């Protein structure tokens, strides 16, 4: 796809997302916003795991750190736009620290190291009641205003989140097309070869974690303001698994993979559950089983994710 067609398709998709919100119910706009918020985190995870090849099962921890920072600082009266860089920076620094195990271990060992980190953060959120409110959480998290415009309404907040997602996507697009992006891909494909070309694999491994974590932290800030009440549950390691699933289902290492995968993982079950179409009514009970079977089938037939379908078709059409 050439650049102009790509931009036109993207603009059309964004326009459709903006217009459709005007005709949706409040709960549906909420779900769309939740999708956008999770895409921020899964975009970061796609950088860490998809582009740089560093397996991580700790993304929900950064999402949670961002959310709790937002909850605390917004309630203290900080402006939303001041909270964003703080959350990004804190998650970046913690992400750097989490990157250190990746210098020693890889693949499933690294997955367990990051999972352990997620469990630790989750326990801190549950037990440090003075700061996090423990299992009672933090309520009354305000939504922002921007240039005097109140973004408290569900549609206004959706536009705010969608606009922010576009900005974040633009940053990631730029990053991936810079020499940094090539270095991440080289790190994933073959670290030794990358090092022989002068790529500092220590620095880029740490950066892959840190930048991915910063994206999740920013997502967490939007999440806290969206739900207006947070408790540790959404930041359990099962959310990290869900995020990784979204990246893989959409297409790991593909720019739009997280957006598509998160739509499948977040929106599809809700669509199936809420379906009132007669022949889909059984989904109200069976939606999770159907979703699970669909994911298993997808991983068998399209292990590269939904966005790899064209590559698979090309391979089928080519010489065997």
């Amino acid at each position: 796809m050439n650049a102009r067609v790509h931009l036109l398709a993207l603009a059309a998709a964004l326009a459709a997302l903006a217009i459709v919100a005007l005709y949706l119910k409040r709960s549906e706009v909420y779900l769309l916003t939740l999708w956008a918020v999770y895409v921020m985190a899964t975009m970061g995870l796609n950088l860490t795991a998809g582009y740089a090849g560093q397996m991580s099962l700790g993304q929900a921890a950064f999402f949670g750190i961002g959310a709790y920072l937002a909850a605390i600082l917004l309630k203290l009266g900080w402006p939303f736009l001041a909270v964003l860089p703080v959350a990004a920076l804190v998650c970046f620094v913690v992400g750097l620290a989490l990157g250190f195990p990746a210098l020693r271990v890889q693949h499933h060992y690294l997955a367990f190291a990051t999972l352990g980190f997620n469990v630790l953060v989750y326990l801190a959120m549950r037990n440090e009641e003075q700061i996090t409110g423990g299992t009672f959480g933090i309520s009354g998290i305000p939504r922002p205003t921007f240039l005097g415009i109140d973004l408290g309404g569900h549609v206004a907040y959706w536009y705010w989140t969608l606009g922010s997602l576009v900005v974040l996507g633009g940053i990631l697009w730029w990053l991936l097309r810079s020499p940094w992006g090539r270095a991440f891909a080289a790190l994933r494909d073959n670290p030794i070869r990358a090092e022989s070309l002068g790529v500092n694999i220590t620095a880029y491994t740490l950066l892959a974690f840190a930048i991915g974590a910063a994206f999740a932290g920013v997502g967490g800030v939007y999440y806290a303001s969206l739900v207006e009440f947070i408790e540790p549950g959404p930041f359990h390691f099962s959310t990290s698994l869900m995020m990784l699933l979204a990246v893989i289902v959409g297409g790991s290492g593909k720019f739009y993979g997280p957006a598509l995968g998160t739509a499948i993982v977040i929106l599809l079950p809700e669509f199936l559950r809420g379906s009132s179409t007669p022949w889909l009514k059984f989904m109200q009970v069976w939606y999770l089983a159907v979703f699970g079977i669909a994911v298993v089938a997808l991983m068998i037939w399209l292990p590269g994710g939904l966005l790899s379908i064209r590559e698979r078709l090309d391979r089928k059409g080519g010489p065997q």
Partner: protein
Amino acid sequence: MAEKIIEFDRVVAGYSPSLTILNETTLDARKGEITLLIGPNGAGKSTVLKTLFGFLTPRSGEVRFEGRRINGKPPRELLAEGLAYVPQGRNLFPSLTVRHNLELGGFTLPRAEVPARIDEVLQRFPRIRERLDNQASTMSGGEQKQLEIGRALLLRPRVLLIDEPSIGLSPILVRDVMALLRSLADAGTTVLMVEQNVRTALKYSNRALVLEMGRLALDRPASELLGDPDLNRLFLGAGSAKAHPAPA
């Protein structure tokens, strides 16, 4: 005799404290020559290149480049000093395009310099220019090897270390790659090569160093060794190197 540009002086190195591969290895490579490292499996040929390029730190002894000690220097610094390394096997990043693979070759250069350097390399490899926007994995084996070498040349190295460039290539392509290395050496680049395809490689090399058990067993002009009826035994490590010992 050309001046020594690479020197190993009683170097001991290996992959773990209990696994020593280079056992007080002493050898050299000379400016503008192709020096061929041969020997049986496990003799330490690839380990010489890895130690030279900073992937392994010598436990003792000294590695010198243009007279300067480079023990333990990281690859980034050695690239900047004028060494380049093409490891064994497929070295491209298959998910990236040919252009992006080349850009990675100039990763340590200022960004503005990279396009001109790529253009310089493409003048030498016109076939690669035709494939610039293709994914690297779609290239043939010979094209991939050309791209690997071209990418290594992007930094205009004074010394090119290359490990088994003929692996996976047809005989015609092997000759093409060897001729390319010969032309590089004739233009002044020193080449230190490990190669299993000994007879072909000897035809294009100036010197051959035979390693056995991590020590230099033989140092002879390549043309002389090519005519040696004992070549197969030497290469397989049958011990006849004692008949033609390396100079002290």
